[in-house]
Every structure is written in structure tokens, then in C-alpha cells.
């Protein structure tokens, strides 16, 4: 992300709006992507992320707004003049052409000699590790291999921008995991600016330099994976990325404190002054809750009862309720070994501590 000041952004979106009849898919989205950056558009289906990608690609036309690539206004340019490579969810490999011919597809119309093209094909096959499948047809490859052919085909003309539309969603979990790393490593090595659309938050966290969280045609938050995970700017982001407990509360007279039902007052992260009695929502991730000996003193302590115990392999998820407040449920993830040491079971009392540094606060309800 260096040199952002000296070079224009690889992609800059200014006030992109798109509607399909009465349905508004995008509401004035603005965004910029630095050269060499890996950006993920993350959101639930129907949030407009794919539409936004297709507008950047020129496959969909926005109603208003400007798309710039490397400073150049490309809003009015057809796809083929925009200089990008794209990988679709279906890969859209040409089934009647061999792997090599698929990769060469975008090279053959450019004035390149046969020798140059062949060199480039070999180079790309090497890059994605498919050299031995050169003369096979796409149908003879596995899903993951097909995916890599699609990637090689998109990269063959050395585009300035790589667009990935849910590229991993058609694959099974294990292949998806390994391809995540491969794509990321490849992108680092080539330094190609990349935008990927996904609805899988884990994928976005693992791969992106920056995540653009979208909902209802709007950008909810833009930030690094750590940023988005640790400091969600809205309840939507908090809920969509990772697990999150929401606890209804009201603002206290003391700034930075909130009262939850049952009367306990908790200190939280909020620094803005909020009028006494304002409805708030406190949020904390299951793995941030402190239990055991360390929860026995300090502020923000709560007494709870274990209602459910779910063993999930490496950790155990506890379903907790506040005594006398069955509406307020809190989930808490504990390492399996730590839970064993605790020696607690369903129905047992469990004191816990909600660290103020982890207790986020939102003004509107989740």
C-alpha cells in the first residue's frame, strides 16, 4: 500500500448508483483501491457486491457515478477497453478448447507471435502449477484445477486489474482452503491489484488487505481484516463478520457506562457522551469473555448460569443466561482444555467478566 500518494488509485469509484427498475442495488458507493492491493467486497447475497464488481468490469452499466482506473475515467468504456482479467464463479472455461488454448484465448487477438504466445502459456501453466495438464480439456480437470485455469486465462494478457467473482464458492471446503493461500500468494508475487467478491467472511478475513463490508447497496465499513473484526462500525458488520453477543442496555449518567437489565452497570468502549437513558446495545465476541479464576475480581463481572454446552472440537461453546433474565443470552467460547479444567457442567453457575476494552457499544438496536 505504499506510494498511494504518488500514484493514482488503481480503481476509484465515485458515487456509483444502480437500480434495476424499482429495486435499488447500489446507493452512491464511493471507494478507492490502491495499486497492488487485494480488496474483498463482503456482504450477504443481494447486498450489491456482485453488481458493483460488474460495474467495474463494464458488464453492467451504472445509472450514475464515475469509475476510474489508474486515474483514467472508464465509465463510458466497453469491457474490452478496460484492461482487466476476470474469473467467474462458474469459471466459464471454454469446454471445446484445451487448457492451453483457453489460456491463449486473450493472447491470440493481440499481435503476438506464436512463439511468444507459447512461452506465455508455459509461463502461466508453471505459475498455477498445471504444466502437465496443458493439452487436457477442462472437463478432465478437477474443480480446483479448472479454477486455476480460469485464473491463468484471466492473467494471461497481464491485466492491470484482476476481478474475482466468488471464485471459490463452487469448490469443496478443503480445496477452498488451499486455493485461498495459493491465490493470495500469486497475487502478492505478481503485485496485481485484485478485487474479490465473496459472501464468506472467513475467506475475506484470510485473503484481503482491506475488506469492504456491504449491505443493502451501501458500504457499511472499509478497513483491514483486523479493523473490521475488532472495531466493527455497525451492528450489521459486528454480526456479519465473526460471532458476536448483543446485550441490550441503557446509557447511565456516568459517561462510558451502561446498565443492562437486571441492574448491573458495565463500563464499555464508548467515549461519546450519550444522554442518560438512551437505548444502547453492547457487543462482545464469544472468545473475548473471561471466565475462570481471572473472572473473580475486577469490574464488569456478571454471574451467569450455564444452560447449554456445545462441544465443537478445538473449543467449547457455552450458552449462558443471566439469573432471572432468561431473555439475555450470552455465548462464550472456551478452549476445550480450559473448559475441562473448569470442571463445570450444564446448570452450573459461572461467573464471568466482560472486559471493558472488548465491550463495544452501538446506539441503535442490532
Amino acid at each position, binding site marked *: 500500500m505504499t506510494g498511494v500518494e504518488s500514484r493514482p488509485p488503481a480503481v476509484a469509484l465515485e458515487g456509483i448508483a*444502480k437500480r434495476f427498475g424499482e429495486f435499488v442495488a447500489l446507493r452512491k458507493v464511493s471507494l478507492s483501491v490502491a495499486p497492488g492491493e487485494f480488496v474483498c467486497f463482503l456482504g450477504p447475497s443481494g447486498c450489491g457486491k456482485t453488481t458493483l464488481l460488474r460495474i467495474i*468490469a463494464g458488464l453492467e452499466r451504472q445509472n450514475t457515478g464515475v469509475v476510474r482506473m489508474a486515474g483514467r475515467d472508464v465509465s463510458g468504456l466497453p469491457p*474490452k477497453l478496460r484492461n482487466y482479467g476476470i474469473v467467474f464463479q462458474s469459471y466459464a472455461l471454454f469446454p471445446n478448447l484445451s487448457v492451453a488454448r483457453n489460456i491463449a484465448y486473450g493472447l491470440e487477438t493481440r499481435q503476438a507471435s506464436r512463439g511468444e504466445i507459447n512461452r506465455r502459456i508455459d509461463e502461466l501453466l508453471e505459475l498455477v502449477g498445471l504444466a502437465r495438464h496443458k493439452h487436457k480439456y477442462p*472437463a478432465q480437470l478437477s474443480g480446483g484445477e479448472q479454477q486455476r485455469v480460469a485464473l491463468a486465462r484471466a492473467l494471461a494478457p497481464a491485466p492491470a486489474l484482476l476481478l474475482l467473482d466468488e471464485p471459490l464458492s463452487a469448490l469443496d471446503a478443503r480445496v477452498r482452503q488451499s486455493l485461498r493461500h495459493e491465490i493470495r500468494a500469486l497475487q502478492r508475487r505478481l503485485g496485481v491489484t485484485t478485487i474479490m467478491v465473496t459472501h464468506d467472511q472467513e475467506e475475506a478475513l484470510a485473503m484481503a488487505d482491506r475488506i469492504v463490508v456491504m449491505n443493502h447497496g451501501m458500504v457499511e465499513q472499509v478497513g483491514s481484516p483486523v479493523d473490521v473484526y475488532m472495531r466493527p462500525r*455497525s451492528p450489521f458488520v459486528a454480526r456479519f463478520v465473526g460471532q458476536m453477543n448483543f446485550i441490550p442496555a441503557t446509557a447511565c449518567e456516568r459517561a462510558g457506562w451502561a446498565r443492562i437489565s437486571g441492574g448491573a452497570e458495565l463500563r464499555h468502549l464508548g467515549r461519546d457522551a450519550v444522554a442518560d437513558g438512551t437505548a444502547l446495545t453492547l457487543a462482545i465476541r464469544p472468545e473475548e469473555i473471561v471466565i475462570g479464576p481471572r473472572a473473580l475480581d475486577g469490574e464488569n463481572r456478571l454471574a451467569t448460569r450455564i444452560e447449554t454446552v456445545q462441544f465443537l472440537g478445538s473449543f467449547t461453546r457455552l450458552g449462558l443466561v443471566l439469573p432471572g433474565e432468561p431473555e439475555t443470552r450470552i455465548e462464550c467460547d472456551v478452549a476445550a482444555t480450559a473448559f475441562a479444567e473448569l470442571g463445570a457442567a450444564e446448570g452450573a453457575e459461572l461467573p464471568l467478566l466482560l472486559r471493558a476494552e472488548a465491550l463495544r457499544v452501538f446506539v441503535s438496536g442490532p
Partner: protein
Amino acid sequence: MSRLDISGDAALAIPARTVRHRLGREDLVRHALIALFAVVLYLFVLYPMLQLTWRSLLDNDGRFVGVANYARYFRTPAIAASITNSLYVSAVSMVITVALALVYAYGLTRTLMPGRGLFRIVAMLPLFAPSLVQALAFIYVFGNNGIFTRLTGINVGIYGAKGIITAEVFYCFPHALLILVAALSATDARLYDAARTLGASPLKTFVTVTLPGIKFGLASACFVVFTLVITDFGAPKAIGGKFSVMATEIYNQVSGQQNFTMGATVSVVLLIPAVLAFLVDRVTQRRQYALVTSSSKPLVPGRRPLADWGLFGYCALIAGSIIGIYLAIAVYSLVIRWPYNFTPTLKHYRFDTVGGYTPLLNSLYVASLSAVVGTVLTFVGAYVVEKCRTLASGPLYLLSILPVSIPGMVLGLAYIFTFNAPGSVLNPLYGTLAILVISNVIHYFTVAFLTATTALKQMDGEFENVSASLGVPFYRTFWRVTVPIGLPAIIGISMYFFLNAMVTLSAVVFLVAPGTELAAVAVLLMDDAGDTAQAAAMSVMIISFGLAVRLVYWAVMRRVNRRTQAWLRSAEAAETR
């Protein structure tokens, strides 16, 4: 956080127009193709039909008379009878054909009776002959000078409704059979397992499982047969005698009495049942797809000796009758004078009354050209409608499926009004082979267009987008990817055009001129002139060429399929994903 609230006003502030992309040479090609397709459909579908409708509102001197022609049509008993006659023979033929074909199809798909492959092939034979050939065969056997009549002295009175229905049943049999075989094949064995475990009797299983499973196929077969019969001209012309149906009535009005406006009036009325049948069929077919899911298990018939041999006997009887028809035609054409002198001869194959082999060569030429032009037009047309989504797509699609509901006679008459109009720029086409090609292409347009559309829909919708991102123009991808993948459909479409162009009579009977006679028309003319043996000989030639081309098609298809086997698997993988 208040920024999350966006009022409806903000949404309304988004303009309805989208940003325009700069147009390149590629867009020019794309728009030119769309425009060309639109012009073709307008000139050869919409405009002629408008002409026809307009003419039904004029008198023979060109004065506007409103619905006076219709009033006269319904008031004149001799002409009005053609409506009830048409409905009668169509309905009866429909019931008989579908019933016969259902049992035959059941034997082919649900039993292990011997000879299923042969039965299937024999049942397809009528597809290779003009409809009037079936009628001629019945005349040769049961007619006043038929062999049956001569030998037994019994005249069954084949001329009229009885003869038309018999001929139509054989003519329509393969059409109904194809649909019913498909319907009976698409079933779920698990339903039958369930019925058996619940202790249902075979009859109960048939009524509660088999029939509901094929009801849409059954409906479709009914509509197809009904439409084929009501629009058919050849059989009623040959064997109908004084029994007039709407198609022959149009012919009589136009060719016999030169009463073009009454011809137009009957044509417009004939459009109604055809369009209705088409619409209902579209609706029922759309609902068919939900019946079989990807998890369905195909039904493997078990051995049931009684049913197997019973149905074998039944199928043998029908297949035997079909073979009998063509045998009668062949023998008739090869003997000196049926049924008096059975000395073999080839003299009927000289075709001296219609100018030798010209009609046959014309037919082959027109059928070949129809295949080429029709295939290119339907495939490219389906491509621009399906893959170049524009505002024109909807109207072009509608115009493309319209021709299936236009009876051949009606299309032919509409073309007379369009191409034989003084001062029309289309006038030079009249009386040429080109107009015959055009009428064939349009007459059989819809089925070919829908076949192409289905093939295109099965291709990944992102092919064009990928090539655009790679800087490859769409027409290059069309040639390198779309056409190779669509090759089986393309070959199938060309076959369809060729075979139909060889046997059609109704669409071309008004359009042939001296020098452009076609084989099927020659059969009609020779039969009319009393040269029945030559008519039979010409029928044999038509059937032989059709079968030969079908054989070539089969060989080509095998090669194409073998070559594309490697990538067929990918299509399946993509579907199951």
C-alpha cells in the same frame, strides 16, 4: 450511524437511464445483426400476416367491406361446413392417434418385448413422406379400384372423412409417438417402488402413477396432432373427395375460384384453432419440467411375458400396417398397372407428365438451401435474442415463435398477397425458387429457433463476458466456442429443415410456378391428372432421398458426438454442481 438511514428520496434521485458505453465496431456488428433479423421477421412473418388479415376485410375489387366476408363465410352452408368438418376430423384423428401411440410408446419404453429398436424405427417412417402419400396408399388398397376392393368386392367407401382420418392417423403417428416416448421415459422409478410396497394393483398403479406422470406429454401430443390435422392439406385433398375441410377450402377458393378474399377469410378463421392449440401447449409444456428432478431414478422395466408378448403383437400389427403402406406405394410404382397387371416396370419413373426429374431436383435444391438458410437464420437469430439482450429481444422472440401457429396454406396465401402485389419491392421473388426456400424457412422456423435457444441457454452465460474482458470480439467467440459446442443442435436443425422441406405441400402449393415445381406438388398434380403410378413413383423418390439424408445425418452425428465426447462431461458436471 445515522448515515445508514437512507430515505426513499435518495433512491428516487437515481436516474432511470444508465451511463452509456462508447460504441465500437463490435456494437455495430451486433446491432446490424439484430436489425437484419428484425427486418427478416418483419418482411416474411409479420407483414404477410397483416396483409392477409387486411385482405380478408376487402372485397375482390379492393374495397373495404369490414366483416362482410366473414358473415358470408358463416352463412354459406357449403363453405361453413368446412369448419365443422375440420374440427370433426381433427378431434377424431387426435383421439385415435394418441390412443394408438400411447400403447405403442408404452411397449417401447416400459416393457422388454423383443424388437423394440426396429419398432421404433418403423414408426418413424411417415416422417419421410408427404401427408398425401398415406392417403394415396389407402386409395390404392381400399379405393374404387383398390386391390382390396377388387379382390373382395367390398367397397368400404374410403373417400371422405373416413379416409382422411385413417390417413392422418398414420401421418401423425410418429409425431405423437415421439412426445409420448419422451414423456414415458421421464419417470421416477421410486414412485413405482412406492406403489408396489403399498400393494397397489397394476391397474391402480397405471391410473395413479403412470397417467399423472405423462399428463403433460399426453396433452402436448393431443395438441400437436390436432394442429397437424387441422392444418394439413395433402391428405384431405387426395382422399377427401367432396368432404371439404378448411385447408382444402382455402385451396378451392384460391386456386379453383380465384376468390382470394374468401381464401383470406377462411385462412384467418383457420388461424384461430391453431393459435389456441399453440398457446395451450406452451402453457402445459412450461409446467412439465418440475416433474422429474435430478434425483429421480430411471425406471428399468422387468420381464412380464404376457404384457411383453401382447404388446409385441400390437406393435407388430401397427408396424406392419405402416410398412404395408409404403410397400403398397413402392409396388404400385413398380408394376405396369395395379391391380390388373403386376409385371415389373420402371416406366413410371420417367415422370414424363411433369417434365422428368426437374421437380425432384428442385425439391432437393430447395430443401438443401432451406437447411442452410434456415439453420443460419435460426441459430444466429436465437443467438442475438438470447445473448445480446436489448429492448428488441422480447418482440423478436415473440415473432420467432409466431410461425408455428401459422398453417402452411395460410402462410402460402399470405405470401401471394405480399410477393405478388403490383409495385411491391418483393415482387421479383415471386415465382422463383427463393420464395419457396423462404416459405419453408418461415414455416418451420419456430421449432428450429427453440431448439437453438435451448442449446444456447445450456451454455455458460459468462462466455461472452470472459471474451470481452480478454479483448476478444463476440463474433470470434461465437465462431470458436458457441458454434462448436452447439454443433449437435445445428446439425439437428439443418436435418429438420431438410426433411420437412422435402415433404411439405401446404406451404408451397400456392407458390410453385412453371419451372419451380417441387416433388411433393408433382405428386399432387400427377394424382389429380390420373397418373397415379407416377405419383407413387415420385413418392418413393421423396421417401428414399429423405431416408438417405437421414442416414448421412446419423453417421455425421456419430462422428460429432465422438469428437465432442471429451467436453460433454463438463456440461454434466456444471449442471450437477
